[in-house]
């Protein structure tokens, strides 16, 4: 990496960390620390919601996902705008009226303490692990690019985020989110325009789009109803809506963003602007991935995108076989390149014969890649064979001009820091408000709870760092995080929906239903092939149904609590 890239990267990152500390180091009380004093405008809430969701994983995995699997991942977000509307109508007024610090406080007001504790513990478990992933992802890139030891990188990255989040709390999280979103947006558009500029040397933008389409990379919508297919319109619409309802309505890392708003209007607008912007934003990121795929039709890509594993196999017993595969892959790539050039010159991109030949060559190339992966596995049985996360970064580091590499890395770092800081802050608030203050030490002063919140932030930061140190072999990161979320989100959402929409169901009924539903979800994960998006639906509906069914038998013994 050049000196200019280093200056850009360190400049942006250093500015955000110092700005966060400078603007918020005088945070005086728990309300400022956990809800930014309820002073945020809708546009700050909107940026903060987007920055929290847009982790480095969004930047790393999503374009790679389009490169490998096409753009169908965009369907995952179709339920998001619907979820934003439902939450604006239901959750926002309730949270606002009750003036809560966390979403789980509401569960005690509506049901009882055990449901509040259950919701908090499910959140702490899931989000604590996810925080580890969000630190791990950019650390992985930097370690690959700079040749740093990944453990040192994780620790350094984690410390930077812990520093400003601990000092400024929610206030620091919201203020830094504004700049982080600016860098992320600029970085994303810079990558998009650069790739279009590079491609224009060989083909026009429209031709490039046609090539991506013919090779199955622009499959944005698939209306087929197939339960075993992970990303279809229906799984996105139904499963995605449930997942987003749960993530934005019950996950404290997001709820805290709109609880920091000045009033109910600002909270609602923040959520709805996210509903307007998120789907097109994901489409653009995926489209960048599809264009990276076209770019690598003109420039020979590495046989395997993870340089560490490639070097390992090349220096091991399978070196000769691997080099032969590389040569074979290069020849197929050349043939594919010639065919594409012929298609463009003859203006025959739409001819199905060309498409068949192109797809056959692509298939051959994929078979060689599979052989290469098999060699990598034989050489190192613990090697990660999923190179999706390395595709986009390979393009950035090797083909973007000086300065832009630094900017893109700063954007990736900003995305990681924005998510991690929101996660640490929400983990700290839930630990303090729902566990410590509620169960352990009820009569402390505001300063005592402020100090405890800071200690909890540091504690969760260390926990995330330790988890990140062991997160090496979990496949595509974005999927791992979503799968992890889906294992508990459905149950949490079921508890909240029962709370919002029913009046007679008691805390005992919903608690028993939640335990049974969570066991069913875990069974589905370990023993069935049901795609993970459906766990949200299963968990949620089961909580609702089981609690409704058993409630008449339990209600007689317990008290019904309602909130008007």
């Amino acid at each position, binding site marked *: 990496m050049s000196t200019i890239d280093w200056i850009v990267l360190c400049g942006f990152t250093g500015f955000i960390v110092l700005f966060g500390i400078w603007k918020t180091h005088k945070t005086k009380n728990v309300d400022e620390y956990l809800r930014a004093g309820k002073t945020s405008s809708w546009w700050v809430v909107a940026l903060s919601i987007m920055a929290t969701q847009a982790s480095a994983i969004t930047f790393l995995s999503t374009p790679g996902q389009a490169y490998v699997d096409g753009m169908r991942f965009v369907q995952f977000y179709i339920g998001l*705008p619907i979820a934003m509307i439902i939450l604006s109508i239901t959750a926002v007024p309730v949270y606002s009226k009750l003036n809560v610090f966390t979403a789980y406080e509401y569960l005690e007001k509506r049901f009882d303490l055990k449901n509040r504790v259950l919701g908090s513990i499910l959140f702490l478990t899931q989000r604590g692990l996810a925080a580890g992933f969000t630190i791990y992802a950019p650390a992985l890139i930097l370690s690959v690019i700079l040749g740093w030891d990944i453990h040192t990188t994780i620790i350094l990255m984690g410390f930077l985020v812990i520093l400003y989040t601990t000092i400024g709390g929610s206030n620091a999280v919201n203020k830094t989110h504004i700049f982080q979103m600016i860098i992320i947006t600029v970085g994303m558009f810079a990558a998009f325009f650069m790739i279009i500029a590079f491609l224009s040397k060989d083909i026009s933008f429209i031709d490039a789009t046609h090539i*991506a389409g*013919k090779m199955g990379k622009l499959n944005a919508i698939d209306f087929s109803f197939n339960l075993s297919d992970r990303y279809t319109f229906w799984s996105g619409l139904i499963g995605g809506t449930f997942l987003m309802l749960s993530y934005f309505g019950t996950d404290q890392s997001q709820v805290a963003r709109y609880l920091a708003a000045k009033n109910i209007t600002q909270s609602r*607008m923040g959520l*709805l602007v996210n509903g307007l912007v998120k*789907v097109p934003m994901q489409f653009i990121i995926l489209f960048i991935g599809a264009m990276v795929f076209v770019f690598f039709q003109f420039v020979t890509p590495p046989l395997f995108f993870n340089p560490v594993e490639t070097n390992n196999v090349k220096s091991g017993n399978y070196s000769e076989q691997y080099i032969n595969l590389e040569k074979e892959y290069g020849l197929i790539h050349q043939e594919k390149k010639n065919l594409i050039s012929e298609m463009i010159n003859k203006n025959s991109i739409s001819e199905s014969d060309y498409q068949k030949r192109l797809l056959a060559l692509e298939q051959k190339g994929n078979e060689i890649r599979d052989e290469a992966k098999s060699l990598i596995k034989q050489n190192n049985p613990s090697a990660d064979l999923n190179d999706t996360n390395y595709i986009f970064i390979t393009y950035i580091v090797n083909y973007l001009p000086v300065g832009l590499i630094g900017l893109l890395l700063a954007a990736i770092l900003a995305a990681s820091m924005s998510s991690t800081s929101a996660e640490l802050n929400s983990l700290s608030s839930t630990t303090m408000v729902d566990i410590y203050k509620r169960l352990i030490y009820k009569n402390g002063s505001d300063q005592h709870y402020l100090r405890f919140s800071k200690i909890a932030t540091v504690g969760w930061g260390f926990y995330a760092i330790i988890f990140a140190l062991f997160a090496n072999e979990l496949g595509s990161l974005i999927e791992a995080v979503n799968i992890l979320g889906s294992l508990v989100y459905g149950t949490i959402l079921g508890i909240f929906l029962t709370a919002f929409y029913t009046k007679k169901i008691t805390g005992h009924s919903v608690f028993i239903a939640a335990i049974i539903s969570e066991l069913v979800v875990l069974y589905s994960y370990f023993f069935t092939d049901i795609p993970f998006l459906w766990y949200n639906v299963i968990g949620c509906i089961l909580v609702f149904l089981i609690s409704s069914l058993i409630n008449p038998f339990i209600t007689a013994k317990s008290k019904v609590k309602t909130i008007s």
Partner: protein
Amino acid sequence: MPEQNKQVEDTPPFLGSWKKIYSLVLIELIILIALFYLFTKAFS
């Protein structure tokens, strides 16, 4: 008076009512799905 203030506070900053804002979000989603479908068909 407090009721009036609450009413003013709960009005969206543009389009005048929440129903219109919700409709805008839904209409945009429907348009995006239609565009994605056409995009998939046109380039496949």
